């Protein structure tokens, strides 16, 4: 399925983009993550959480096709 992926802060520094659409043939978030690690190897050294449809999800969550976001540590306030 075609998934929109958003990158923020230091994650966007690694990917050199803030958003992209990827055709993904995986079912879980961890599967998608492996795809991203092969594409952007520096991601492995970064600390981030993953949101699907604007809610944080675990690695074993199922991909629903909704928007995915890679969120580096929060720094609000």
């Amino acid at each position, binding site marked *: 399925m075609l998934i929109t992926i958003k990158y923020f802060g230091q994650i966007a520094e690694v990917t050199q983009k803030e958003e992209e659409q990827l055709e993904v043939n995986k079912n879980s978030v961890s599967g998608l993550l492996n795809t991203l690690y092969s594409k952007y190897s520096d991601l492995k050294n970064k600390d981030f959480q993953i949101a699907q449809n604007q809610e944080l999800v675990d690695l074993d969550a199922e991909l629903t096709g909704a928007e995915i976001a890679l969120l580096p540590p929060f720094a*609000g*306030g």
Partner: protein
Amino acid sequence: MKDKKFKNVFKEGAISSNFIENSIYKHQTKTNIGAHNIFLGQVRADIIDGKTVSAIEYTAYEDMANQKFHEIRESAFKKFNLTCMHTYHSLGTVKAGEICLFVFVSSPRRKVVFEALEYIVEAIKANVPVFGKEIFEDESHQWKKNK
């Protein structure tokens, strides 16, 4: 995708003392309020490895952040007897000494506002996807991380 009609808490640039003043002034018509409590986050000119932070550049996953702010608001009104609650966060560049976060709670009685304000500020720090790039005076940068 989620419904996205949550209030937008973000403001471009620093939050001015005038804006805060106006917000305080507007509450003087609410004569059931006995206590206001205001938190202001101000950008520190931290010195890190000999370099001084001159500004923070804020970005956010805005839709999710506004949704999280909304959830925090709902939860605060459920937990505490608040009359009003207002929250604003900066996006973009906020210089050292300027204000980037403004949280304002009001209640008939004081005990409530102390508890509520701390709860809300901690929830914002922990749960809202806002990112901060600390810009040093030599234009290098590092990424801020809440503790």
